[in-house]
Each structure stands twice: as C-alpha cells, then as structure tokens.
C-alpha cells in the first residue's frame, strides 16, 4: 500500500469516519481541528509531548522476549511491547497527555472523559491532576462494578466519577453521556476521547498520539532481532492501542497486521463485541464504521469478559484497513483470553490486562504452527491489576 495518507479533510477513511454529530458540536470539532493543525505544525508542542512521555510516562517502553512461553508453544517467538509498564498501567496515557496539552493550548480548564475498563478514565484523571484541570469521568454503572479499583484510583486523583445508568450501562452509554456533557458545556470543556473512534478529528488525533507505540517498535525490533517482526498483533475494542501499533507498519511490506476483537461467548451468538468480524457498517457516536446492530439499526448490547473491549463499534481506520485487506481482523473468545491471561502470569511473571490477553491468546494460538525463527510482536497494552477482582470472581474467589 503506497502513499497511505488518510483521513481526508472531512475525516474519511474511505467510506468510514466523517463527522456525524448534532449541529451544536460542529463548531467545537472545527475549533479542535484547527487547533490541532496548528499544534501539529509546532515543534514546541511535540517537544513537550515527547518530554512528558519520557519523564512522566517512562517511555520508550521496552520490548520483551517472552522466551519461556514461546518455548512452551514450540513455534514462533513471541515478543511483547510493554505498554503495561507505562505510568497508569496502559497505553491510554499516551493519548491523554497529547489531548491535555491541546486542551491547555485552547485554554480549557475542565476536561471530561468516558471510560469502560477505567484505564482511560485513570489516564484522564492523571493528566488533569498533572495540568491542574477539573476532570469528570463518565462510566457505565455495570463497569463501575467490574472495575472498582480503577474507580477508586480516579477519585484519589481528584476526578469526579459519574455513574451512567442508561442503556446497557457500559462504555457506549458512557460515551453518549460524555457527548451530552460536552454539548452542554462546550465553551469551557475539552472532551478527552479515549479511543480511535468518534467524530473527526478524534480518530486521527488519537492515532497520532498512539503512533509512538509502533514508531518505537520499528526502532527497537531491528535492534533486538535485526529486522522487523513477521506479525504485529493487538486487541481491538475501539482500536486505539491497535492503531498505535499498526499505523507505522502500514507502509512496511511483509509485516502481517492482525487485530483481535472480543469474541465473548462466541461469534455464532450475539454475546460478543466483534463488529469487524460479525457486524455491519452504520453510524454511531459521530462516525461511520462497523457496528454491532440489529436489522432495524438499533445497537446491540455487547458482551466481553474485558470491559475495555465491550464496545459495539470500532474506529473508522480499522474499518478501512479491513476492507482494503491491509490488516486482518479476527476474534478470541472469553475462555481463550482467560487461558492466555493465566499462561502469561505463570510463564512470564506478567499479569496482563484482560483486553491485551485477547492479543496474547491469538499469538499463543498462531505460534505453534509458525517457524521457530518467525516473530510475533504483541502489544501488551495494559497490566491486569485492575482485573484481579474479575478473575477471582470467575474462580469463585471473593477478594
């Protein structure tokens, strides 16, 4: 694929993306687009962003060769991009720093965010504290139950966590509620959107702030193994960690790109969260993309053991990459993800996030049939400390 240069001026990746919001938000998105264009051309903006990533987040994050696990699988070598080692425990902070710096340039003193697993909420609360901004995080009441450690973390950081009781009480409803807040407080408030979805310019913005993941890998892999990996793989909910890893590799021939969706209880039913694997295109949350929807265009309640992947849509760039064939998308079900979670804990001494465990499970499934000198690079997008209550609960243990 040569000269990959998307999105277009209207935020389209092929037929996906765009701006589908009520009129009241159009001016705010236009303002954000203009400010980002200025920031993008300002070397001082990127210098500060990189400074923050180095000294506050701890980047570059290392790549680690999961030798014991690879050995046990007996095929391809699995390498892990350690986004779990970032400050706040996941890749989300790369984006929240970028957007908070933009908010500061725009003179906004209040930030809002939606969160599913709580990782983006924590990353938003963190940067709000760091830059002295008020922070309100919207979170589905169902997710608040599943992710209580992160809820408390956000409160410790000074954020207000607002439980969302509408719809399925998960990430999609939190996003609706954040949009409603934004439309009401549009003059004072910056909306820090956490995934590579939503109306333009968010999918582009989030991608540009997460690209650092793949850019580092492109330098680190040759240092470690003398070449680029054969496969790069990441879990896909909205798709921010995946696009961060994938985007710098789109133009690199010979690198297979694999996105892993949440297969939940299996793709043959409706209890999953895999719009690219089993959905159809439509419009939700400000953009056009693959959705989990019924024949009437109503959004279906999704299911995944991981709150962060429990989302009925997927970012428009992934939709484009799927249709163009440059990336392939597949699903891993709850059981497979849980098995990979435990294997990673016991064989490598790393507790991965349940979200990232989907990508790990794909690697564990693919590795045995690959050659021993082939390399799979997995984005370990977050750590699993937040998931220990869920895991314990599944084992019948109350912590």
């Amino acid at each position: 694929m040569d000269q990959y240069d998307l999105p277009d001026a209207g935020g389209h990746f092929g037929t996906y993306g765009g701006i589908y919001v009520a009129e009241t938000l159009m001016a705010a998105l236009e303002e954000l687009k203009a400010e980002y264009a200025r920031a993008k051309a300002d070397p001082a903006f990127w210098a500060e962003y990189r400074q923050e990533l180095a000294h506050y987040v701890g980047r570059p994050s290392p790549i680690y060769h999961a030798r014991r696990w690879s050995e046990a699988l007996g095929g391809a070598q699995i390498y892990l991009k350690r986004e779990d080692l970032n400050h706040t425990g996941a890749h989300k902070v790369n984006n929240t720093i970028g957007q908070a710096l933009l908010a500061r340039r725009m003179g906004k003193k209040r930030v809002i965010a939606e969160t599913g697993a709580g990782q983006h909420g924590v990353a938003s609360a963190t940067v709000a504290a760091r830059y002295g901004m008020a922070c309100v995080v919207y979170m589905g009441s169902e997710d608040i139950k599943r992710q209580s450690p992160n809820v408390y973390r956000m409160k410790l950081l000074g954020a207000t966590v607002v439980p969302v009781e509408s719809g399925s009480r998960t990430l999609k409803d939190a996003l609706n509620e954040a949009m409603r807040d934004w439309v009401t407080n549009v003059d004072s408030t910056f909306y820090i959107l956490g995934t590579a979805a939503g109306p333009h310019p968010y999918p582009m913005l989030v991608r540009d702030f997460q690209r650092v993941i793949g850019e580092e890998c492109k330098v680190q892999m040759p240092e470690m193994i003398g070449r680029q990996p054969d496969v790069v793989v990441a879990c896909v909910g909205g798709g921010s960690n995946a696009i961060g890893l994938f985007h710098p590799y789109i133009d690199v021939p010979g690198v297979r790109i694999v996105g892993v969706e949440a297969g939940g209880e299996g793709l043959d039913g409706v209890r999953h969260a895999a719009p690219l694997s089993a959905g159809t295109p439509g419009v939700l949350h400000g953009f056009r993309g693959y959705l989990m929807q019924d024949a009437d265009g109503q959004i279906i309640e999704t299911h995944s053991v991981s709150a962060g992947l429990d989302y009925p849509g997927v970012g428009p760039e992934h939709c484009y990459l799927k249709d163009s064939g440059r990336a392939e998308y597949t699903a891993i079900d709850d059981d497979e993800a849980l098995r990979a979670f435990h294997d990673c804990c016991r064989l490598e001494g790393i507790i991965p996030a349940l979200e990232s465990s989907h990508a790990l499970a794909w690697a564990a499934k693919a590795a045995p049939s690959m050659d021993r000198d082939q390399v799979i690079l997995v984005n370990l997008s977050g750590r699993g400390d937040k998931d220990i209550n869920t895991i314990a609960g599944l084992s019948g243990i109350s912590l």
Partner: protein
Amino acid sequence: MSRIAECFNRLGGQKALIPFITAGDPNPKLTVDLMLGLVDGGADIIELGVPFSDPMADGPVIQRASERALKHHVSLAQVLEMVAAFRLENSHTPVVLMGYLNPVCAMGFQRFAERAAASGVDGVLTVDCPPEEAEELTGALNAAGLDPIFLVAPTTPPERVARIGRLARGYVYYVSLKGVTGAGHLDIAEVTGKIAALRESIPVPIGVGFGIRDAETARALASSADAIVVGSRLVQEIEAAEPQAAKQRLARLVAELKSAIR
C-alpha cells in the same frame, strides 16, 4: 407545494405549534391516538421521534421515551406504518420524523425516502447528520418530495447558517440552548436576537425548540420565531399519565401552549 409549506401558508403569519412525541411511547398501540390528540389540542405540525438505542443528543426524558418504545421493539418500519395509519384519519397535519441516522442507514436512504413518502411523512430531521454528511440522504429525500429539516445551533457560525439555508426545506429547527433536549437554561433575549440574525440567510420558516417547558416561554419566543417545538414537556406528560388518560392530557397541554402563542 409540500404539506409543511402549505401549513405555514395557511397560518398566514400566525405561529405554528410543533409538539414532539416518541413513536411507540408508552406503547405502539397508542401512538396514532396520541397524534390525533395532539391535533385536537391544536398542533400544526407533529414531530414524531423514531426511537434509537443511543440517543446522544437527548436528555433523560426523551431517552426514557426511547427506551420504553424499544421495549416493544418499535422499528423505523413500524413508525412508518403508524404514520400511514394516522394519515387514514388526518390528511392535513404535516408529520416530521425526528431521529438518528443509523436506523435510516439500516433501511437504506432510497428505500426509506420512498417508503416514508408513501406513508405520508412530510419531513425528516436526522439529528446526527450535519450538512457535511447529508448529501446522499437529502438527495433521496428531495427526490421523494420530502423536506430535509436541519438544525441550527447557537454555536453555528454565519457561513454554516448560509450553507444550511441553501439545503433546508420546510423549516429550520433552531436549537435554543447549548445542551440536550429538555435542558433548563434557555435565555429568551439571546434566542430572540439569534433568530432575527438567522432571517438574513434562512429562506424558510424558523422553528425554535429544546428547553421550552411552559406557555410563558412559548409565548415569549413566539414573538420572534415562526414555530415553537415542545418535546420533553409533553413526553413527561405521557410518562406521568395512565395510558388511557394520556391523549386527553396531551390535548389539554397542547391547547394551552397553542393559545399562548396565538
């Protein structure tokens, strides 16, 4: 001439009252009757909400109405059937569908426009489809003789107002506040000033809505707008009433609002 244009003609400068209810709320059997109740009370045009699972621009009242309708699995196709049933009883009151783009996408723009026109729909307002993305949909609507209705917001800059003015048919819906439907911080003086400014580039009548909760506010805004849209307040009435009493209570409230803007 479209039924909406005819309606404004007939009013001859009198202000139109546009009540909104959600189709299928509190259950699909009542909708046609409630629409007739709105007409009894003095509704000039009816905005009929198409329920959607993720009503991003709506406040809690209309969200709940959508949820009640979706408990009965009310689809866009069924909403069109309700309009067709209403048309058997009433041939002069324009009906505007108001909702979100995805159910329309799922049906297909062309198919939707044809079926809506055949059912007796007059205008379509898709809240999350700004002019930038509306070309294909407005093309299909115009071809079927339906009026595409657009929102204008307090944040809309003049050049966009002009663009919307070129696309708009029927009327333009001015959002009276920065917020969701049913919010409570409307500034009458500010809205009046805005509407006057919009006249320069909006050739069709201007309706105003979002947050109009009582006769007094309706009266104050009717001095500048051509039409007053009331939604959440009516939906609250449906929510509070026993199903068999809802029609009468709606008619009474609509009559009160209508006499306030006369």
